[in-house]
């Protein structure tokens, strides 16, 4: 594996090495995230000043989509749609899982590389292809897909229903198909690697929680993405081959269509059967990374290691039986409202257990406030804030008035846009030395942290109030309604924070790129952490360890173990006489 001649192409582009692939995922995911974030800046301008002219809208979107500097309503919907699609899939699924699963799995379990380097490389290139297609869809004449990131038919099935449902929607479906393939290839690889390639002594109960989380995430993905694929395939059939899976009794654009027997509700079920596990595919890695970072930086074992594993399993299992809470007022049988209220509220239990265990890890700890730790703490705060509003929305009766309002927008942004993104930042700052062999700049990191955390709540917390005032989501403008007069002031607050919060991310980007080339060289184990990735040399090598694979003797959380002088004991350190390595 090592010692073969590498060209630029085989080293940096078409690499089989999981460490290179993880960086590729990070950079592509980050680039897409900036596009998605840019889109939200644009539509926020329209939302806080409906109908007003903005030079920048015309500058970026041109005369067709922002005539006179006023955002076109169809392009508004397209921006909202693509923003959601990019953030959920390209940033938080590929960018988060793709980066950290690829980086951490082989390193933390003590393997030379993933089970299949070829499938891993393909997983990245399908993701890249998917990104290219999605970006291309922005430039079609009738506009990109515009039915919301959920693209419900018949709106998304019929080009005559909305301009974006033409070629833009076709490209969206192509992009997502490629994306699903990428996720499946990656997920299969992660599962096989974790099951088969753990090094000697690495029992399942000695795995760091990041691996447990990534393992369960991969299982969730493998079981649920194919269902989205099925949903997309049936939608492609309805769009292209005249089928009626989702269509029935439609009169549109002056024509009664020749489609009968189908139901849009079928799409809802298929989509949300992935859609709900999807948000846990986003959340579980965030929870796993946070466990590692909090434990390392508090110099304490993660509190309740087994309970943490148990709650990951519970969340993973329950995530498959709650999808109907997205459909309470979809027209499905109201009895299902009973069923899904029950299962959805249950999922709050393991989530609460995790929060209590994070807090207990801090208790009596010795906290090092690294930039990563600050973001991990922010993750805990935003997970609580966003999670509790989930309890409101889980209740079918309460969802009646809150469904598709800004209350929902606030909830999912705080749990995904904040909590998971905070964890991703924490992960990047924490594992940057492992990825690039250098340290990121601490001061820039703290500035990035404080501005981001402040603006984060500034953007999304006020939206709860908009939702409770009855403001529907995906509305281009609300100034038609006198009842929403008060909303304009909130919208301005939100936009102001959004702009500042958005701009500060460029400081992060600067820090990232600058540090890649000019950051101070990292020591082998800068955070004095126990897990195996810190036992590899700082300079990347194929096969990760020179010589033999490490042998594991203990669990990863021997921090401040009174039997040892150092406040950390890496997993490779043999047990002392009479010492217990497992907890």
């Amino acid at each position: 594996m090592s010692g073969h001649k590498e060209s630029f192409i085989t080293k940096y582009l078409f690499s089989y090495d999981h460490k290179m692939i993880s960086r590729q995922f990070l950079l592509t995911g980050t680039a897409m995230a900036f596009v998605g974030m840019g889109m939200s800046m644009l539509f926020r301008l329209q939302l806080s000043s409906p109908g007003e002219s903005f030079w920048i809208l015309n500058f970026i979107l041109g005369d067709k989509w922002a005539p006179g500097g006023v955002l076109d309503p169809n392009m508004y919907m397209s921006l909202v749609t693509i923003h959601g699609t990019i953030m959920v899939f390209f940033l938080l699924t590929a960018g988060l899982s793709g980066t950290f699963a690829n980086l951490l799995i082989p390193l933390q379990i003590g393997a030379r590389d993933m089970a299949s380097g070829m499938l891993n490389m393909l997983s990245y290139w399908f993701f890249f292809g998917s990104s290219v297609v999605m970006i291309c869809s922005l430039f079609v004449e009738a506009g990109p897909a515009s039915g919301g990131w959920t693209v419900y038919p018949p709106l998304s099935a019929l080009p005559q229903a909305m301009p974006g449902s033409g070629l833009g929607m076709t490209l969206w479906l192509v992009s997502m198909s490629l994306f699903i393939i990428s996720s499946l290839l990656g997920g299969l690889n992660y599962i096989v690697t974790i099951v088969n390639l753990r090094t000697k002594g690495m029992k399942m109960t000695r795995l760091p929680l990041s691996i447990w989380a990534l393992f369960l995430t991969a299982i969730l993905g493998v079981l649920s993405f194919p269902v989205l694929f099925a949903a997309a395939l049936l939608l492609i059939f309805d769009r292209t081959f005249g089928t009626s899976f989702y269509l029935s009794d439609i009169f549109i654009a002056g024509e009664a269509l020749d489609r009968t027997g189908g139901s849009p509700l079928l799409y809802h079920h298929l989509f949300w059967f992935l859609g709900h596990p999807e948000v846990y595919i986003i959340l579980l890695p965030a929870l796993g990374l946070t466990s590692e970072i909090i434990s390392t930086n508090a110099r304490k074992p993660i509190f309740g290691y087994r309970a943490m594993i148990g709650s990951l399993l519970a969340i993973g299992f329950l995530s498959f039986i709650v999808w109907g809470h997205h459909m309470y007022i979809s027209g499905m049988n109201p009895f299902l409202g009973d069923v899904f209220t029950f299962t959805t509220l249950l999922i709050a239990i393991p989530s609460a257990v995790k929060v209590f265990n994070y807090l207990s890890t801090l208790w009596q700890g010795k906290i090092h406030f690294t930039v990563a730790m600050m973001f991990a703490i922010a993750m805990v705060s935003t997970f609580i804030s966003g999670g509790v509003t989930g309890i409101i929305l889980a209740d079918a009766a309460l969802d009646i008035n809150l469904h598709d309002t800004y209350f929902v927008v606030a909830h999912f942004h705080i749990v995904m846009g904040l909590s998971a993104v905070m964890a991703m930042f924490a992960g990047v700052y924490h594992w940057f030395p492992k990825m690039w062999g250098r340290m990121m700049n601490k001061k820039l990191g703290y500035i990035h942290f404080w501005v981001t955390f402040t603006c984060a709540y500034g953007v999304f917390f006020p939206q709860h109030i908009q939702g409770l005032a009855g403001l529907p989501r995906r509305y281009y403008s609300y100034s038609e309604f006198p009842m929403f007069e008060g909303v304009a002031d909130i919208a301005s607050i939100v936009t102001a924070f959004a702009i500042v919060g958005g701009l500060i991310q460029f400081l992060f980007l600067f820090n990232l790129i600058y540090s890649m080339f000019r950051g101070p060289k990292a020591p082998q184990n800068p955070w004095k952490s126990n897990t195996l990735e810190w036992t590899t040399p700082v300079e990347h090598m194929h096969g990760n360890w020179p010589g033999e694979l490490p042998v594991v003797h203990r669990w990863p959380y021997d921090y401040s173990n009174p039997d040892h002088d150092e406040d950390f004991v890496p997993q490779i350190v043999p047990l002392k006489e009479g010492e217990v390595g497992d907890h």
Partner: protein
Amino acid sequence: MTTFLIYIVLILGIVALVQLVRVSEISNFLNGDDGIVITDKETNSLSYGLVIFIFGYFAFYAWLVWRFWDILLPDSASEHGVAIDTLFNVNMLVITFVFVVTHLVLAYLVFRYAKTKNKVASFKSHDNTLELIWTTVPTIVLGVLIVYGINTWNSAMRDVPEDSINIELYARQFDWTARYAGKDNILGKANFRMINGTNTLGIISKNSIDSRLAAYDTDIAELEESRTSVFPGGANDEEILDVIALRKKHKGYVMQLKANSEVEDYSVADDDILVKVEFHIPINKPVNFQIRSQDVIHSAYMPHFRAQMNAVPGMMTQFYFTPTITTAEMRTKLGNPEFNYLLFCNKICGTAHYNMQMNIVVESEEDYQKWLSEQPKFYTAGNK
């Protein structure tokens, strides 16, 4: 020119930032700071910072609620809405308690256990009793919320009252039509193949069937005529033939409806009343909304009544409620003489999704009957 200047400013800005960072790195090095270890000074200011942040967060929350209290929805104007609002308040109490307490604990922990204040961390790694407690307590609390929530949902969704007024809310890109069922309180049947001219909802009645069949005949004849002006057997011709075939198929369905008129009583549709822009309902009587869509998914959202239900093409959905506050009463209550209850579309349905609404007027029984009697019936509304 502007573009060029913008690029120059951006590039110079980045260069400046690079230099600033290099200067700060050098000064760190001179101070012995390796850029990795967190200094005591940093630790203290960061932990204080977090505590201040959390209290600032609470203050922000409180200020938002205080400042924007008035735009929150007023008391619900429906019977079941009262139950929903109480359920909401109970849930809010629980989650606010959890939110505040966990954040206070977080603030305390990051302050008290900063490495400047606690020199040695404890090795206590688990406590099974604690795990049991903090699994059981949330389970019980959530159990209560589950039962309470399910009961509230069931009482809102089940057992449509026998004496409900039947009103159809018909959604299409981009307006709503409300259809009243008339004296017999039975809504006439409808089918999308019947949509034609003034029969925008596709309602089936003896007369509308005949006019629809006549319209199909005219249409098919015109299409056949148009074939003479295209190349026989060519692509355009094929297209026209396809359209004709579809028209004939749909016409066949309508002919079947006509044949069924021996068995079905289509006269129930004659007294139906269609209104747009605004619809009225009487106070204190249950209304059962039957919701349909013509083209894509829409959603009937009536927030003041705590009511929402998707309008799905191909099926009928329903939602019922009993209004308890008249429009006039609500205007007095809010001190806003312009206030109107509103029906919004709340499921993305296309370009004008944001501009698809109807006013709802709740009034006394007499006023309602008077208003209803002034609206044209389907039978007379040009559908002969």
